[in-house]
């Protein structure tokens, strides 16, 4: 086998390397004269190789962009098909069953032997060898009296020798095999006889087995002749062999005898000398040489060797007897018919009522017994096959296949055979399946695995029981085999291109696991089931077991030096190293570690706290944490804590959901390509030369977006262009103190000197001072923008929560100079800034809209002491802003904000979302939106939005009357309305984008909104609409576009007197629909409890839109053809 090629094979080379034996005395390499052999060798595939699958396959060329396969899952999908379960012993076996099982076992080996036909092969080989030997003997030059060269002679003798040896070994082998055949045959016949006897004795039969014996008559004389000839040949061969041996032994004997004789003689002489010396006495002692004395003593000390026995002469008679004995054991006697056995299953089984009581009860027990198989992976229950009862022959047809998706590579797959169900179930046996390697492609080949139990069971009926040492039939334990098919499920595409680059960690697992499982299952089974070690099918198993016994088993399908030699540390140390953990987590972009810059190189310097906190968080569930922290936080703190936690979990959830979509890059993200001018663009650019020039009304050029990595080394600036302000309050005449009138000479004409101070990310910039209540600055401020961790990816930009603030101040200059005489040479002023109002724009709005342009109303103090709004001076420089009542209400500021270079806003998420809405409604919604979009490309229409669970939900489901808090309700309905709006506006506002980076525009329902306590305009608007509806108002959720938010939601109420009021839910401000100064500047659609209407009118700015949905300018979504499906 290939597997046996383990590390042992290269060792000897290393050991022997030291000496000079590789060289001859001449200094040349000690090698064969001519290493080139002129014989032709053909690389024959050996038996095991023929069964191997090919390593390569012809693959058609493939269109593919996504060749790089990511390995998200380590596990894969396992297909387990269980075909049948066969018991070879079970406590409910009757004695007949036991015998039948034995017979079946024998029959199986019998058929296997028949198909392999080893005996026949060996016999033929023996014949051929003998023939060749005889031929060679004939052609032997010596026998023919012809003297060839010496070389020839040597060659022939050598060859004869080899032949003799081969014949001998072949004969022995043949004898063994033939004996096996005989034994098997007699065994089968014996068992069959037993069964027949048992059936006769019992007067019933409970198995359907029937052994059909076919006899083939043979010529007795011929066989006898053959046998005689064979006998003669065998005897002759044996005799020659024995004689040769005898001669060799005789030679040896003669030699040993000679040496023995010499030794004996010497000893005798020595003895004689010693005796002489003793008789002479002590007088002459000195004279005699002490040397000989010592020698004699040594000689005498050597114990007498036994006299070698002459080898036994070859006794021809005895040899013949022995060969006869062998023949009687291995060959059938001449004249005995050839026997062919066949096992059939058509013996009729005796009906129940003809059986004895014990058998009846046994059969009842059998019919009650329920068997099922459990599949366990890594000792966890995966599934259980349905309960099944036995067939008569104790087999169970399962025929089930299971597909199991695994998250990690399985360590061990176990099948458990379970009997009974519910409380009375017993685990009979368990067996581990070898885990197939992922690269094997066995198709539809069932494998059998043997299981064995270890319980002792006695029965009070005819069942034999099991594990009973002293009973005739029940001595064996419960055992059987399962035939199954286990392989990895491979998808069709994956099969075509196998670019499988799993790291070896997982590669090493299958082999080691296989080793483990093999040992576990087979070793206990081996002892009990007595596997035939000579059976060719078992040789792999036996070899494996032998190796296992010596502890030699090694996962050998990949190269590996000694597992633990020279290791620096253990695996556990490596995996628990804090530094590596932190580095790995940073690499994985875990939120807590993502932005760590420097991780100390020494373990001890690393802050363990954050890692510990992270791990704790991973370990404990949310529920436990809440209960743990509730104890030490009270009131609002606790509430906020909960909100934080909820948000964090939502965020995590969302991130996981949208992670994959974020990974997909587009070509535009990677390649920045200049548009090649074509006829159209050249034409327009040529035409632009002839355009009328309007230097006083410059147009903004469209800029290219900078994407991806190109941003890294650029400075991103936030450009703020402050154009003008309208209706700035002016100083009250009376506030100018009469005393200082002389010193206020500078500002006599202008009642206000406003300037704007803008703040962004700790940078403060200001404009110059302009004059008058309608100042024009036309000034550009540029703020450096610092992204978090210099990371300009959309994901990180979305988390920026900075705001840009604009403050409008009035610069008042006090002249501090007391002495008028110094006025010519000295200036002594005190500059005072007086706050008149401010504006806040979140960065996320700028980022999402890429630019903001418009006129915003400023938040200002409720009372501005010393300032008045001068309506006479508010001459409108721009014609279309009429000085109506509303324009008086506040100061307005015209600004333009953008980022330079333009950062790409996050791509809208285009993936398909699941939804619980009916399919036809969704498709109708798509059609509805598409037709409207085609008509009004500027307006954005939607019918379904994402809720917090990531599902599409129809917008009108968010609207339901909701009771406002008790405290807000007062007698006066208008007061209540104001209070409710104020209440809603107090809930903090945070853009979806910031809240859930990566996923845009998620709508939370009112309950979730009140739990989270943060949300953006749509959540506020939904809540406000719900409250208004409860107050009995006609209220709609208005989806439109406003400044500064961009796309936003307002609430539209229609008062009893027919007034249409727009509410900004985040500021609690209400505007009349006719107000041209309202921040809402486009109306797209209206939503109420029952329906969604799209604005199909020509205009979409609120003053010009007819907000009555029953009129023709609105198109409803739910209609008679598409009814509202109601709640699913």
């Amino acid at each position: 086998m290939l597997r046996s090629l383990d590390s042992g094979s290269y060792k000897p080379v290393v050991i022997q390397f030291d000496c000079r034996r590789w060289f001859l005395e001449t200094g040349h390499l000690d090698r064969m004269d001519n290493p080139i052999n002129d014989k032709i060798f053909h690389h024959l595939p050996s038996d095991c190789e023929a069964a191997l699958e090919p390593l390569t396959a012809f693959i058609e060329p493939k269109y593919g962009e996504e060749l790089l396969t990511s390995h998200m899952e380590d596990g894969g999908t396992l297909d387990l098909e269980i075909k049948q379960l066969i018991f070879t012993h079970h406590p409910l076996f009757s004695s007949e069953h036991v015998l039948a099982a034995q017979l079946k076992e024998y029959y199986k080996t019998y058929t296997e032997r028949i198909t392999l036909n080893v005996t026949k092969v060996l016999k033929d080989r023996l014949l051929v060898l003998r023939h060749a030997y005889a031929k060679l003997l004939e052609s032997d030059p010596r026998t023919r009296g012809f003297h060839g060269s010496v070389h020839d002679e040597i060659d022939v003798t050598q060859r004869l020798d080899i032949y003799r040896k081969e014949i001998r070994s072949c004969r022995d082998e043949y004898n063994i095999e033939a004996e096996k055949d005989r034994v098997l045959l007699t065994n089968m016949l014996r068992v069959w006889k037993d069964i027949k006897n048992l059936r006769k004795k019992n007067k019933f039969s409970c198995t359907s087995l029937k052994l059909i014996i076919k006899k083939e008559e043979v010529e007795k004389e011929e066989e006898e002749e053959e046998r005689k000839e064979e006998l003669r040949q065998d005897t002759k061969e044996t005799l020659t062999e024995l004689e040769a041996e005898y001669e060799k032994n005789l030679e040896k004997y003669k030699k040993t005898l000679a040496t023995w004789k010499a030794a004996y003689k010497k000893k005798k002489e020595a003895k004689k000398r010693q005796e002489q010396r003793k008789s002479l006495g002590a007088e002459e002692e000195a004279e005699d040489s002490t040397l000989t004395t010592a020698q004699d003593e040594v000689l005498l000390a050597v114990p007498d060797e036994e006299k070698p026995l002459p080898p036994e002469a070859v006794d021809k008679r005895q040899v013949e007897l022995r060969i006869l004995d062998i023949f009687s054991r291995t060959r059938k006697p001449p004249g005995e018919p050839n026997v062919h056995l066949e096992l059939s299953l058509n013996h009729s089984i005796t009906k129940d009522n003809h059986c004895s009581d014990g058998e009846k009860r046994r059969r009842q027990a059998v019919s009650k017994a329920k068997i099922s198989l459990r599949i366990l992976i890594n000792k966890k229950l995966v599934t259980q096959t349905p309960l099944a009862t036995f067939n008569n022959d104790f087999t169970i047809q399962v025929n089930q296949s299971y597909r199991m998706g695994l998250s990690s590579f399985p360590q061990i797959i176990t099948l458990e055979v379970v009997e009974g169900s519910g409380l009375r179930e017993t685990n009979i046996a368990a067996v581990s399946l070898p885990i197939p390697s992922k690269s094997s492609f066995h198709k539809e080949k069932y494998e059998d695995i043997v299981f064995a139990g270890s319980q002792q069971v006695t029965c009070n009926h005819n069942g034999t029981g099991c594990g009973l040492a002293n009973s005739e039939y029940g001595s064996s334990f419960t055992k059987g085999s399962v035939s199954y098919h286990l392989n990895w499920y491979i998808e069709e595409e994956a099969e075509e291109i196998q670019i499988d680059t799993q790291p070896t960690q997982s590669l090493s697992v299958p082999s080691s696991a296989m080793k483990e499982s093999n040992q576990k299952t087979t070793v206990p089974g081996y002892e009990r089931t007595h596997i035939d070690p000579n059976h060719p099918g078992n040789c792999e198993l036996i070899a494996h077991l032998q190796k296992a016994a010596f502890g030699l088993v090694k996962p050998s399908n990949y190269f590996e030096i000694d597992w633990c030699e020279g290791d620096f540390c253990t695996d556990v140390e490596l995996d628990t190293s804090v530094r590596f953990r932190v580095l790995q987590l940073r690499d994985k972009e875990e939120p807590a570690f993502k932005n760590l810059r420097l991780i100390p190189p020494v373990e001890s310097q690393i802050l363990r706290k954050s890692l510990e906190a992270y791990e704790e968080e991973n370990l404990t569930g949310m529920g436990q944490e809440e209960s743990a922290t509730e104890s030490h936080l009270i009131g609002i703190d606790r509430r906020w804590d909960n909100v934080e936690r909820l948000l964090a979990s939502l965020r995590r959830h969302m991130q996981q959901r949208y992670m994959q979509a974020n990974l997909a890059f587009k070509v535009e993200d990677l390649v920045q390509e200049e548009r090649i001018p074509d006829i159209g663009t050249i034409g327009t650019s040529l035409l632009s030369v002839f355009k009328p020039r309007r230097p006083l009304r410059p147009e903004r050029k469209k800029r290219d977006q900078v994407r991806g990595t190109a941003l890294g080394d650029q400075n991103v600036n936030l450009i703020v262009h402050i154009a003008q302000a309208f209706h700035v309050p002016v100083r009250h005449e009376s506030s100018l103190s009469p005393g200082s009138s002389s010193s206020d000479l500078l500002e006599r004409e202008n009642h206000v000197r406003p300037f704007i101070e803008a703040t962004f990310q700790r940078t403060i910039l200001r404009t110059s001072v302009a004059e008058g209540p309608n100042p024009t600055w036309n000034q550009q401020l540029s703020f450096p923008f610092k992204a978090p961790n210099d990371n300009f990816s959309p994901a990180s930009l979305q988390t920026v929560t900075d705001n840009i603030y604009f403050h409008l101040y009035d610069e008042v200059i006090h002249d501090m100079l007391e002495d008028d005489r110094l006025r010519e040479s000295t200036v002594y002023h005190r500059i005072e800034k007086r706050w008149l109002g401010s504006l806040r724009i979140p960065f996320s709005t700028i980022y999402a809209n890429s630019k903001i342009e418009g006129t915003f109303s400023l938040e200002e103090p409720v009372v501005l002491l010393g300032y008045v709004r001068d309506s006479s001076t508010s001459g409108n420089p721009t014609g279309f802003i009429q000085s109506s009542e509303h324009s008086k209400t506040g100061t307005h500021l015209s600004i333009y904000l953008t980022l330079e270079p333009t950062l790409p806003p996050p791509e809208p998420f285009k993936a398909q979302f699941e939804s619980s809405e009916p399919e036809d409604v969704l498709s109708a919604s798509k059609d509805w939106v598409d037709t409207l979009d085609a008509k009004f490309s500027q307006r954005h229409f939607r019918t379904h939005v994402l809720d917090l669970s990531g599902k599409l939900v129809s917008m009108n489901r968010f609207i339901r009357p909701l009771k406002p808090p008790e405290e807000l309700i007062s007698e006066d309905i208008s007061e209540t309305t104001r209070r409710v709006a104020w209440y809603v506006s107090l809930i903090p506002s945070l853009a979806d984008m910031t809240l859930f980076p990566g996923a845009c525009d998620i709508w939370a329902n009112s309950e979730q909104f009140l739990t989270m306590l943060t949300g953006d305009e749509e959540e506020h608007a939904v809540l406000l609409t719900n409250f208004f509806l409860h107050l009995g108002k006609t209220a709609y959720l208005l989806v439109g576009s406003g400044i500064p938010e961009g796309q936003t939601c307002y609430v539209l109420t229609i008062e009893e007197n027919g007034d249409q009021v727009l509410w900004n839910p985040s500021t609690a401000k209400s505007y009349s629909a006719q107000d041209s100064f309202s921040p809402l500047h486009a109306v797209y659609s209206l939503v109420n409890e029952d329906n969604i209407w799209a604005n199909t009118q020509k205009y979409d700015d609120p003053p010009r839109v007819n907000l009555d949905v029953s009129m023709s300018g609105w198109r409803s979504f739910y209609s008679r053809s598409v009814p509202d499906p109601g709640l699913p």
Partner: protein
Amino acid sequence: MAEVHVIGQVTGGEGFTDASIFCKWSLQLGGGWRVVEGLSEGQTQADKSQSGEKVTWSHPIDLHLSTRGIQGWPRLLIQVYRQDDFGRIDLCGYGVLHIPSRPGHHTVTCPTWRPTGTLTEELRRAFLGGGPQLLSAEFMHSALERYRLHTVPSGVVHLELGILLRNFEKHGIMY
């Protein structure tokens, strides 16, 4: 507990056919190794050489590995594919490259090979595209199975790798 940094690039290849060639590489580690940071596999862009046979990828490799011992020293498994004029992809070569174990800057080349098929398969490959591929990438580096393959040499992939070792001398590894 030693660390290895592998910083470098898949510079390019030469000796392949003059279609668009790209390269997939992946890191193969022994059991005692962990990837701490960096991507352990990658795929280069498809480069069509303008002149000669040299293609340039300059695909960055930046890995931080930690290890328990020196066994199972990391290897790069390299697969080169070609993309023909129809956008179809088929195999050009397989190669295995040991990451150099001496710290410093190394310019290494990885010769590649591809399995050959029967005569008909080769003819089809030559005229219609496609070709024999390994059924599993495992066979690329498994010592046991390779002997059954019939291969022909393909082009060469050039890499530049900078190796930084840490804590190896602490455990008596000399270099």
